């Protein structure tokens, strides 16, 4: 009997049809967005580079000294070499993988954390749970980002993922606020009422009926967060709070400060261009995604 009612409950959640149509319109709209498609293609190319690094197809000699100090651009060293003779091209490629690792880990966990906390507080808006979540968001937002990261880096001593933890614990509030707002709108709608009337538990309503309807927000927040994480990594690595082992564009730029006053710009230019390409492409992709998913957004 209960099982039958639950199935009915799912059937009653009519927005299923509306949801597919939203995604279909979004897909059609996105397919017409030339800038967005170019952005997506470039991001895919970068991802391919990163996958190659993870599987050890290329950039395997990024840490080796393969040439003279500050060797010029040549067929062997496409972007020249750095201050101790390491190949800048290989280091740049290797850093692409680091960027994706940082971006993906942070973006996914931020969306999970922000989505769950935002949905919970929105669904229980006005209760003490909501108050606590709102208070936490306010507190986290009040501490400036770099100071927060420095503080977390100290508190976690030499934990290699201190940077990830810091980014996740500061970035989630934006997603949380968006999701909270949307859930407050959703929780008054008929399909939620229907689910409740059929005796679906609160957690199940939030997870199965409400959260899936905020997917468009989560997707957009994920792309924005990915970009923020990559950009923050550069600054944090420069400050000595970022990537601990391995190589990243931030570390390359930080390394280049020893070089460019002597007139060697290869490291700086390579890291800057590689990073700019990915961030710019991702920004275009994120823009197109927002246009496609938000019918109310004014382009």
């Amino acid at each position, binding site marked *: 009997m209960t099982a039958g009612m639950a199935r009915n409950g799912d059937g009653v959640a009519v927005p299923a049809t509306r949801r597919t149509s939203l995604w279909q319109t979004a897909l059609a709209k996105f397919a017409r967005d030339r800038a967005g498609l170019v952005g997506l293609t470039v991001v895919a190319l970068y991802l391919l580079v990163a996958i190659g690094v993870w599987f050890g197809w290329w950039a395997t000699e990024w840490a080796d000294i393969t040439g003279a100090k500050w060797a010029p651009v040549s067929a062997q060293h496409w972007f020249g070499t750095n201050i101790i003779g390491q190949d800048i091209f290989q280091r740049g490629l290797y850093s692409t993988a680091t960027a994706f690792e940082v971006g993906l880990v942070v973006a996914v966990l931020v969306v999970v954390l922000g989505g769950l906390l935002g949905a919970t507080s929105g669904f229980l808006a006005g209760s003490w749970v909501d108050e606590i979540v709102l208070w936490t968001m306010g507190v986290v937002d009040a*501490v400036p980002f770099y100071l927060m990261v420095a503080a977390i880096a100290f*508190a976690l001593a030499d934990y290699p993922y201190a940077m990830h933890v810091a980014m996740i614990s500061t970035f989630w509030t934006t997603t949380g606020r968006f999701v909270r707002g949307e859930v407050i709108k959703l929780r008054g709608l008929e399909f939620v009422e229907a689910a409740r009337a059929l005796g679906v538990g609160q957690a199940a309503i939030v997870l199965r009926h409400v959260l899936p309807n905020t997917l468009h927000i989560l997707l957009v927040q994920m792309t924005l967060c990915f970009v923020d994480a990559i950009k923050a990594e550069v600054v944090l690595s420069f400050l000595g709070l970022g990537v601990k082992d391995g190589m990243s564009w931030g570390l390359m*730029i930080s390394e280049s400060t020893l070089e460019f006053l002597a007139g060697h*710009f290869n490291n700086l230019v390579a890291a800057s261009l590689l990073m700019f390409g990915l961030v710019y492409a991702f920004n275009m992709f994120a823009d197109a995604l927002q246009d496609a998913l938000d019918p109310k957004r004014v382009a």
Partner: protein
Amino acid sequence: MDVLQFALRKLLAGVPLLVGVTLLSFTLMVYFGPDKTYELLGKNSTAAQIAEVRHELGYDRPFFVRYAEYLRELATLDFGHSDSTGAKVSTLLARSIPVSLALELPGFVLGNLLGLALALTAAFHRGRWPDKLIMGVAVVGMSVSFLIVIFAFQIWFCTSHGLNWFPVRGWSAAGPLDYLAHIAVPTLATVFVALGYNTRFYRAVIVEEMGRDHVRTARAFGTPPLRLLWRNILKNCAIPIVTRVMFTIPSIVIGGALLIETAFGIPGVGRVTYEAIISGDQPVLKAVVGLTASLFVLTLLVTDILYRAVDPRVSLQ
């Protein structure tokens, strides 16, 4: 009277937030912060000596006693002496905050005014080429890392590899020309990076406001464009704009421009903070973190009260 009551109620509501930020900065910076015990001890110290030093540093006292001590420090602005330089933290801040303000205010004002101007231009030509050009460049600006902009401008304007017009490092405000020479490149970099974000934000706000019924009605009644812009559009955009401007203030006053000041060797709060981060100078860090966060909460409250001043639609209740 109403406004006073409203302000008092808001202040009261800010207390939990203030407790939260001080508790957070205390927990991270002081409780789990750098441990100085072994720096003060010689080699092969006995357990008794360790306990004695820990007692002197106050590490053996309970969490809430130490938190109360931190609150007292915040309230009296007395954070003791810097670990690395030995100077009083309050003196250090009093010396560096004016430098940061002098450095950042021009860029902050310019970045917002230019952003607003560009956003208005884009919004009024919505969908046509000026809009597309401005927004296209804005995305480019948003995609460049601040750090790269700083280095690129520094190489371009301040070294013999480029134009070499301005001093590459240092700070002096002896005369107006001296001052301008030192803030020119940092300001350019700040404006360049802020412009992309500001323009996009302001354009979104303005476009939304321009699409409202009352604007269309006012236009239909023949309201002159400038009057329409001021009375019907800009005034209604005041809340998001005031919020954005207000919320940047705490990080400007105390956070300082960490990257700018470090790269250009300017002795502002940002550089003091950077050096404290690098050397683990806890008295300085706990002061900067605690003060910035507290100032942020106060700004939040003031903004709430300001809303009432700029927007009669916000109720006092």
